[in-house]
């Protein structure tokens, strides 16, 4: 069965195109875009880790190593599409247009971090594993019903495939032929549990067979494979051909979260041979004449500034307002909740 789902690669570890049929489509603009966003979200990610260490934000789940997955897939989407991320997919949402200040706020325990920019269809990160898959199915079903060509993408990990909602989501998507991209980042671990103990199937892509759904396994550290295969799935969905399951094989370089210690469960050396997706793209850029040392330095400076500005934005953001505890539970506060709110605001005064 594994044989039916070989891992698709467009660019190898050395940054060489292994599938020359893509040569033409890989132009300057795409390369720079991929590079810009991957570098940008990495800058964000590393800053977030250091903020957590300083106690300036809460527990944080880094995505380093998964930048090709997140940027490649997000760039394959259109403006009006819907994004349903997990807690580890803020690389994708930042690329898609989420606000960086609010991203920091989110990781600082602020609900303001769940509020997407106007017009942007970005759901709050799903914390209960696999639940967002159904939301993506529902939202894209709504687009289909409205007759638009918009799609939804659901991000989820290898561990998520064990939950009932993964299954119910894929079944709904296939039965109603919703325009949904089921984008799996197989980073080899669900916290400490390696994929071999998570499932007995050799691939995640083969799970598509259960739903009579197209499935594909790609090298998730190859930003071109991610970009073009996601784009293919998006186009199929737009054209009314229903959902696709994409397994992007990748690697989480760091800890599950800043509260996690991977040395407890990952054999030392495991993953060391994996070429970082950003390095891989840079090799390609160097090989193919896209690399401009000075421009990259300038870009890095600019990104550092952007991130620092966002950190400042977080710090200067209005303090948490206790009224927000009450005001958004219902469209209109029920009387007993109104009473609780009044009681509490009074309490705070005295």
């Amino acid at each position: 069965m594994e044989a039916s789902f070989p891992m698709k690669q467009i660019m190898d570890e050395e940054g060489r195109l292994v599938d020359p049929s893509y040569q033409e489509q890989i132009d300057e603009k795409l390369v720079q875009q991929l590079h810009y966003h991957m570098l940008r979200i990495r800058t964000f990610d590393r800053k977030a880790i250091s903020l957590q260490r300083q106690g300036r934000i809460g527990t944080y789940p880094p995505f380093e190593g998964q930048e090709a997955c997140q940027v490649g897939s997000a760039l394959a989407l259109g403006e009006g599409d819907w994004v349903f991320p997990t807690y580890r997919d803020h690389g994708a949402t930042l690329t898609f247009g989420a606000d960086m200040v609010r991203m920091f706020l989110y990781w600082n325990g602020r609900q303001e971090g769940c509020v997407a920019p106007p017009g942007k269809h970005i759901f709050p990160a799903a914390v209960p594993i696999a639940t967002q898959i159904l939301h993506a199915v529902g939202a894209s079903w709504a687009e289909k019903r409205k007759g638009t060509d918009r799609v939804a993408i659901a991000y989820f990990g290898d561990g998520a495939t064990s939950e009932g909602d993964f299954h119910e989501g894929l079944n709904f998507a296939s039965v109603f032929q919703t325009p949904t991209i089921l984008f799996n980042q197989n980073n080899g671990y669900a916290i400490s549990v390696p994929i071999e103990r998570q499932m007995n199937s050799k691939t995640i892509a083969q799970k598509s067979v259960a739903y009579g759904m197209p499935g594909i396994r790609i090298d998730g550290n190859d930003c071109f494979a991610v970009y073009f295969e996601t784009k293919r799935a998006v186009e199929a969905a737009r054209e009314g051909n229903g959902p696709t399951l994409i397994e992007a094989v990748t690697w989480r370089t760091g800890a599950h979260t800043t509260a996690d210690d991977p040395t407890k469960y990952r054999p030392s050396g495991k993953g060391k041979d994996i070429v970082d997706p950003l390095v891989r793209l840079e090799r390609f850029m160097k090989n193919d004449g896209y690399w401009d040392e000075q421009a990259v330095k300038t870009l890095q400076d600019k990104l550092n500034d952007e991130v620092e500005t966002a950190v400042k934005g977080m710090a200067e953001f209005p303090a948490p307002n206790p009224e927000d505890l009450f005001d958004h539970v219902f469209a209109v506060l029920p009387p007993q909740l109104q009473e609780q709110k009044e009681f509490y605001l009074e309490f705070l005064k005295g």
Partner: protein
Amino acid sequence: MVMATKMEAIQAGRTSTKVMTMIQAINQGLRTMLEADETTILLGEDIGKNGGVFRATEGLQDDFGEERVVDTPLSESGIIGASVGLAVNGFKPVAEMQFMGFVYPAYDQIMTHVSRLRMKTMGRFSVPMVVRTPYGAGIRAPEIHSDSAEALFTHMPGIKVVCPSNPYDAKGLLIAAIEDPDPVIFMEPMRSYRATRGDVPEEKYTVEIGKGALLEEGTDLTVIAWGAMIPLAQKAAKAAAQLGIHCDVLDLRTLYPLDLDLIASSVQKTGRVVIVHEAQRTGGLGNDIISSINDTCFLHLRAPIGRVTGFDVPVPFFALEEHYLPTVKRITQQIESVYRF
């Protein structure tokens, strides 16, 4: 006897009414909203071709098509989870859970998303949807088909819970629930589906969510109930009247948010209370009502509040359900014993 709900209809000058059962009223409520609002979409197991196992959706797929009255896979979490996506993207899903005992597989979706999405996005996204579900025992149904799980939802912030006792309220509350900007659990007393009949206006109308009704007026004691327990409460009140005990009978109609003013004003008048519900006693909604009375009527209470509820056991197989359920006799005795305290 004050028939608050009929009064409302009459006050509003609605004359074109028809006598119907509760299941017919629900069917009409759904039809009304499918007609009135293009975004209304019905989802559930066997609701389409089959018209629902209780025929609540009979004829609706024929008239509104398979895209608006959708037979789904057998997948409760799927139904609710997909409805979240539909609801945030412009639709008004009305999802049927075939029996309340089958809502549990969807509990996670309701608890972590349906109820919390507005809060966590500060209103940027919301989930205006209705979960319809037949509940309760008394019709000799198989195991798990007779649960009365309101307390699992009244404890869940962000969700309203509604439970009509008669056809008029059923249609009016259902329409109000579908029009509500927030998610509503709509509990239908299956035992009353065909056992209750009444005048129902043919046009669109609503019964306000959050408002109970005073069904009978008395001075000595307040009986508080809802849904399938209402006919029993009314009969018990009648029996008590013959013993010289005159009762207010309150039909809560909405279980969250509770109509605390109605409860307080009645209890402050009578000073004595009997609460009736068919769910288990421990953790049942009766406890919340007692607490609210503790908060608002402490100095008015003349006797401990009495409760007639299901026992703290799983709803039994049907050979024993008559022993589990409150009965008119148990309620009457409880009224008497509270009165004589």
